[in-house]
């Protein structure tokens, strides 16, 4: 018994040679939506095999990812909030923003569909019906790209969620997965990115109730953190990543990522 314990202990302390081998690496601030879908597990080994560069992904909301970039704590970003990205570049924190890929958001809700959202002609109309019936809606509430998109849809639906009070509109202040867990638990509607939804396992009674609307378009951009702003930014290796991701090999790799035969991200770099 003692011997077995010692063997396991020895294995534990030899188990991570890959950590020390990661001498050449960059830090990528990205979003939970890309990370949790499993996209990076698909892309990064290919990139590493080709270039020898490890990419360390810190997965947070887009708002926080932009903040990490502002403070120089990441070398490159992969995020999804066009307005926020343009502002980030305009303020001099980032350079060379490029289109990478897109997917789309879906509106999920309880199978019983108490607000009668299924069959609504547009997502704005779907949101109007949710507000009109005061059916519970779980909002990310975390200044992420998905949250910012959700607020834009509410605006186009003419619903002022700030004035909605705390009754049906519930701001959770958490990531996509936790928001879906909560929505499933309280039979609420929610806006989710298709990638996280596809990989999400605790759906309970949630199903997609609205999809395909133009305003559910969800484009991702790659931005280099401006190395002139902070010392220590790994600019050269970050450029290698940035170009690979938006080049033919990275784009093909993105198109090849599938869950259950379904393609989740569509490359659109020009």
């Amino acid at each position, binding site marked *: 018994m003692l011997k077995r314990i010692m063997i396991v202990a020895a294995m*534990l302390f030899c188990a*991570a040679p890959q950590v020390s081998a990661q001498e050449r690496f960059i830090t990528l601030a990205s979003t939970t939506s890309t990370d949790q879908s499993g996209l990076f597990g698909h892309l990064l080994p290919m990139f590493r095999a080709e270039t020898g560069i490890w990419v360390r992904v810190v997965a947070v909301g887009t708002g926080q990812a932009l903040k990490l970039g502002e*403070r120089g704590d990441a070398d490159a970003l992969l995020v999804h909030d066009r307005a926020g990205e343009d502002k980030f570049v305009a303020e001099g924190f980032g350079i060379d923003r490029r289109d990478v890929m897109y997917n789309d958001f879906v509106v999920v809700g309880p199978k019983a569909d108490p607000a009668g959202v299924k069959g609504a002609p547009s997502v704005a109309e779907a949101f109007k019906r949710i507000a009109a019936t005061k059916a519970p809606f779980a909002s990310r509430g975390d200044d992420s790209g998905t949250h910012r998109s959700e607020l834009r849809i509410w605006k186009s639906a003419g619903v002022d969620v700030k004035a909605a009070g705390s009754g049906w509109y519930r701001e959770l202040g958490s990531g996509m997965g*936790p928001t*879906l867990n909560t929505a499933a638990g309280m039979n609420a509607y929610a806006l989710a990115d298709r990638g996280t939804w596809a990989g999400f*396992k605790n759906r309970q009674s949630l199903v997609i109730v609205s999809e395909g609307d133009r305003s559910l378009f969800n484009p991702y951009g790659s931005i280099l953190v401006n190395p002139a702003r*902070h010392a220590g*930014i790994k600019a050269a290796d970050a450029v290698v990543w940035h170009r690979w991701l938006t080049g033919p090999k990275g784009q093909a790799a993105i198109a090849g990522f599938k869950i259950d035969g379904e393609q989740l991200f569509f490359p659109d770099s020009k």
Partner: protein
Amino acid sequence: MLDLAAALSSAMALVTSLDPQMLVIVRLSVLVSGSAVLLAAVIGLPLGALLALSDFPGRGALVVAINACMGLPPVVVGLVVYLLLSRAGPLGEFGLLFTPSAMVAAQTVLVLPIVAALSRQVVADLWEEYGEQLRSLGASRPAVVATLLWDGRFSLLTAILAGFGRASAEVGAVMIVGGNINGVTRTMTTAIALETSKGDLALALGLGIILIGLVTAVNAAVFLLGHVARRRMG
């Protein structure tokens, strides 16, 4: 109930397969929390003893402050350490953010008050009991500190274990300063948070069962060690 059964079987599967990815995570958890506790003990034990034995203006306030710090919210500690280590922060040039070292630093801040506060209490109680005797022997301050720490070693071990419990259980601080990077800074607790947010509750709970098992094993080992030591020394 089905979920609990699924969690147990996923924990069993992880343990029996000795999944290399999981071993990396377990190893990092043990290393980070172990280093933090070691550092906190090296600083906290003498600090607690000195606080128990010295008298200076403001000592009471300091004791209250350290006791209060036992309840520091991990997420706040994580945020402060993040701001210090960020490239835009005062220690940014060392490039420590999102490394295990940053996680050790944050956990040390969390554990130190527990070790210092509890060891101050232990040493103060011992001083009350043996102070006269030590004074009559004319022992120097360092000798008194060493004697009392050695005398209280079994109680102090419990203080250190309390610190280890705090470190291995927290997620707020290591999430912020470590970034939960796969293979680099992912620990048991951040992995559990991640699997929960993916909705894979069975795997998350399975990891939780392993973490609890690990902490139990550490405590059992320390208990046995103490038991054997006590017998040997009578």
